């Protein structure tokens, strides 16, 4: 709401429903709309429609719901629709354990939607970061006209922590850019230098054409290699070329570290505890924590592990993000430390697996 949210559509699912219930109470007071749909498919598509109506819109869900949303996500990417999805991970596959945590969906979130694209995904580790990165997610989605996903989990969703909220007037809030040319000259998918097209809303007289088919700058369907290439590369490059405004990570004790742990989201809290514990015993270990999970912030990952002899990727799943880390650090020894736990894996469980390789 600080970021200017005006529309929420959703379908209840643990552990994301608190977001929905809170907004159902608070958003209408602020002139916004909250609606419960018949499923997650309707929810994501309504969010896209609302965004084209000119407002900031979001939904929240968990694994089963996100699985239903991915066709809509692909539509949002194709139609360059700003929106935010709060994805609160729970233990899977399938219905799994609705109330319990895990980080199984880190790859699904990135790749489940069809077509080729870049996707912006943030992974907060605290309530404060949930708040800050939500505002940031809206800003990124509005700036680049992309869907942005805020990836948390059951642990973070149910935790109670101190949080400092911003005055809406103090917070940095970015709104999508509007057309600068006349209605006659406006083309809904004509990019500016940053590769992002200004966005007219419905009802402003621009006669927008929201098109899920491959389209030219007017939004007109074209089935040619030339237009397909141009569109796909622009959709990808508008994210890649603007990485500087997306990157966000934190490193702890990495300067002199022989071992660097890479960990994200709630699991990184335990990894941090372990690092501090090992440091107190004189072990030179550090932590690198990407907040931007996708696209991979290769630069900061390389920088934070520069002096490390070994890198450990600690995650609450069977070991998935480690493949990205190994790809980026291909000349380093990278170890997967997958610790499946329905809560945050405790530091001891992490250490138990890790110590074998230290």
């Amino acid at each position, binding site marked *: 709401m600080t970021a200017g949210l005006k529309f929420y559509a959703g379908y209840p699912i643990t552990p994301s429903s608190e977001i929905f219930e809170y907004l159902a109470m608070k958003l209408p007071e602020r002139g916004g*709309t909250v609606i419960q749909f018949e499923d997650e498919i309707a929810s994501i598509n*309504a969010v896209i429609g609302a965004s084209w*109506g000119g407002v900031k819109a979001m939904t929240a869900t968990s694994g089963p719901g996100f699985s239903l949303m991915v066709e809509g996500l692909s539509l949002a990417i194709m139609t360059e629709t700003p929106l935010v999805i709060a994805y609160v991970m729970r233990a899977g596959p399938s219905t799994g354990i609705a109330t319990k945590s895990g980080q199984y969906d880190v790859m699904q979130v990135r790749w489940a939607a069809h077509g080729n694209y870049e996707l912006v995904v943030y992974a907060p580790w605290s309530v404060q970061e949930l708040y800050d990165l939500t505002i940031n997610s809206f800003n990124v989605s509005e700036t680049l006209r992309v869907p942005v996903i805020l990836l948390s989990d059951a642990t973070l969703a149910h935790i109670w922590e101190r949080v400092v909220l911003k005055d809406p007037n103090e917070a940095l809030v970015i709104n999508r850019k509007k057309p600068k040319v006349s209605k006659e000259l406006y083309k809904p998918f004509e990019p500016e230098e940053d590769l992002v097209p200004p966005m007219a*809303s*419905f009802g402003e007289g621009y006669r927008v054409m*929201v098109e899920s088919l491959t389209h030219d700058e007017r939004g007109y369907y074209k089935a040619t290699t030339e237009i397909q290439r141009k569109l796909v590369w622009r959709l990808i490059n508008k994210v890649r070329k603007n990485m500087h405004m997306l990157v966000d990570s934190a490193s702890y004790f990495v300067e002199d570290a022989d071992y660097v742990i890479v960990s994200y989201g709630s699991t990184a809290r335990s990894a941090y505890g372990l690092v501090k514990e090992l440091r107190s015993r004189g072990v030179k270990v550090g932590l690198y924590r990407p907040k931007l999970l996708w696209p991979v912030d290769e630069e900061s990952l390389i920088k934070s592990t520069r002096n490390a002899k070994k890198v450990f990727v600690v995650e609450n799943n069977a070991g998935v993000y480690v493949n990205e880390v190994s790809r980026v650090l291909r000349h380093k020894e990278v170890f997967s430390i997958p610790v499946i736990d329905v809560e945050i894996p405790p530091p001891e469980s992490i250490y138990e697996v890790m110590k074998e390789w230290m």
Partner: protein
Amino acid sequence: MDVTHPLDPYLRTDRLPHLWCPGCGIGIAISSLLRAINKHIMEGHLKQDDIAAVSGIGCTARATLYLNFDSAHVIHGRAIPFATGLKLVKPNLKVIVIGGDGDLAAIGGNHLLHAARRNMDLTVIMVNNMIYGMTGGQVAPTTPTGVYTTTTPLGNYEYSINVVKFISTLNANYVARASVTHPHILEKYIYTALSKEGFSLVEVISPCPELFGRHIGYKDPVELFNKLKSLIRFEEKPQIEKSDIIWGNEIIIGEFINDNKKSFLRIIGRGV
């Protein structure tokens, strides 16, 4: 662009010719829609810039590519949710959903049902050609029992859905069935649908000579059109119980529901 037809201002004429086959009924459905819109505009009820056209995927759904309104051609089955999100944040827009029977009643059936349940402020034009056109003539939930299609080579053995009967059990303010063989009635129903608050649905019976007629012995579009025309029966006060579509029997057209229940937007205090 030179105006060569009175309805040209409502078309993206630079995108013509359209992709519909000769003998297809969608063109008549869309021209009827445009005449109804034009009438509302001429009478001062509507402005062109306040109209939004939303469609999913299919031959019928392609209409939004040609319409000179704010338009969205989204994904198969999901026009209604997109339109609902849009309408909720822009209540002053007249949001029109255009789609085929597969788009709206099969993959999108859940959304159709719930939009009618909510009496959501949308006008839905569903062209029922009793077949999946765009994908090549597969069976649709509207395909009458016994009819041959590319996925029912021995004839359709399923019961079909009667959309007007189904939607009439919910809270829609307007439910009508028309046919492209009777375009004046069609235009009148769309005109009425557009003047309604809440949910309105016009089912438009329409021939698909390429993919429906061809497999059941009507190789010539005119033959199929005439056959359909002969089956259509207009009723001033049609009975829902008699509205099932059985191929070969009479197909009842008429206004099944014409009501003024409080619409969704009225209920939440956003009515315009």
